């Protein structure tokens, strides 16, 4: 069973390695001190299990996970993060609160091993985690990946989001990016007042709106500053009216 430890503190990684000595079947194949390295190592080694710290430089553990298509079983750890802990509890996710006891650690690893044995996909659990987290804590940036390049987009650089099947297309100053996520979860996490859902499959940044034109009776077209035209649904128009107060 292959495992990767991702934590920005050396001593935290050492502790996990020391506790893991009891588990002969688990082999630590890589150690990473940030999310970028972690992502690379996961793609390279395709591990069964990862130990993931949440607060790390550049991108958080959660943000790293969002960039992985078929994430392995994860044992989260955090020192202090109310939002994350709440999200874990709501989704019955196993997590370690630093500092943790050896007994607690062993319990978590045993559960994880059982999960790996059942070949259960944890996609659903992670999806739920993402959703509850977006309800708790509003987003302030979005991490995307194109090929091997990871980019962090500030929300004010995003012009609009567009639903495309299981993905969301993010149109931004830096270009267009695809990200595996649900429009609904995204809508919940965006700061209200800055973003409006104008259509079932479109969310716009109000700062990038150029004008709104009546197209037919009850149907409008929205022009963005970059010239793009987007359809506005009836209920979307209502929401737009509310936010822009016209």
């Amino acid at each position: 069973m292959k495992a990767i430890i991702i934590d920005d503190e050396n001593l935290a990684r050492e502790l996990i390695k020391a506790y893991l000595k009891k588990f002969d079947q688990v082999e630590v194949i890589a150690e990473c001190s940030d999310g970028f390295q972690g992502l690379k190592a996961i793609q390279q080694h395709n591990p069964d299990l990862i130990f993931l710290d949440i607060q790390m430089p550049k991108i958080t553990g959660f943000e790293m996970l969002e960039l992985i298509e078929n994430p392995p079983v994860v044992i989260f750890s955090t020192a202090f993060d109310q939002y994350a802990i709440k999200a874990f509890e709501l989704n019955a996710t196993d997590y370690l609160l630093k500092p943790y006891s050896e007994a607690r650690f062993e319990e978590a690893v045993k559960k994880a091993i059982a999960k790996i044995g059942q070949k259960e996909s944890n996609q659903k659990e992670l999806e739920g985690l993402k959703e509850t987290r977006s309800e708790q804590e509003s987003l302030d940036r979005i991490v995307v990946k194109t090929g091997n390049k990871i980019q962090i987009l500030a929300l004010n650089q995003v012009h609009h989001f567009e639903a495309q099947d299981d993905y969301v297309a993010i149109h931004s100053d830096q270009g267009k990016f695809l990200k595996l996520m649900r429009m609904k979860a995204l809508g919940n996490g965006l700061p209200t007042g800055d973003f409006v859902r104008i259509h079932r499959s479109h969310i716009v940044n109000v700062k990038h709106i150029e004008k709104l034109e009546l197209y037919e009776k009850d149907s409008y077209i929205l022009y963005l500053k970059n010239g793009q035209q987007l359809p506005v649904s009836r209920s979307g128009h209502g929401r737009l009216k509310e936010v822009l107060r016209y």
Partner: protein
Amino acid sequence: MQHPFLKNRNFIPYITTWVMIAAVFGFALYNFYGLTWQTALIDSLVFNALFMGLGLAYWFNVRYSTFDKSQLINQVISHLAAAAISILVGVFLFKMIVTPMVQEEYYETFVKDSMPLRGALGVLYYAIVVLIYYLILYYDDLNTKSQRQAQLETMLKSSELEMLKSQINPHFIFNSLNSISSLTMIAPNRAREMVVKLSDFLRYSLGKENDQMNSVEDEINNIMLYLDIERVRFGDRLKVEKEVAEDVKDQKLPNLILQPLFENAIKHGIYESLEEITIQLKAWKDGNLLKVQVSNEYDPNAVSRKGKGIGLKNVRERLSLIYGVNQLVEVSKRDGIFTVRLDIPQTIADS
């Protein structure tokens, strides 16, 4: 401070008071000095109107001289001079205006005879008006002071917890405990050392009153403990450069005022970067000011997660409340270096 009788509608009671004085004055002239009522009216109105005008000017002599024991003689001289000049001017103008208006011989003699009395009255007017000005100033000062005091107290109370929370980041404590947990297995000696450091740091940070003033040396020692602990966690990634002038070591600064600056430096430096980060601390004396500067390298391109912005705001508010002066915190960002400088006055206005 604006002129108390010219701001808002305060000129109304001022003028009303003078009209009443003029009425009494005129009545006295008519009754006791045998002037006709017209002459008494003209005399009273001109004389008192002149002093009403002069009274407004007295303000500047009060306002622009500070009330200070060492300046007492200067003050007395300045008041005597102002009184003498204003009374001479007032009486002279009075004579100039009144003489052509009332062309009667007995009145001319009356004006001449009444000069000493008018001078004495001028002195009385001067004294009363100046006294009122001093009372207003004193009252105003008292008001501002009690307001500031109340503000300081509520702020200290409400923010006591908030400040401790922001000054000692729970992340820091739990992660440090986790590091200790790890060290007990791989290096028990270092674990013990870190427990002692963390305890010293917490004892210093938690054991102090919020309004306490500490020496630069104590505060910096505590900060160094904090940085030592962080260095155990982050290893070589954290470099610290310290440049503290000898003559500032026993100068005073508010309790834990530097802690948020270093937390920020660590947060934006170490927590958001993959590279090695240098934090620089400088402290020196500049006249009456103690200057403390903390700078750290940061990644200007990082899309950082929004902080609550409590740290710096708190520092700013605390300093302005303690010293009664704004602009004691200067922040600059240049060439990937974030710098905060505190200018801490070494004599507190209130103590």
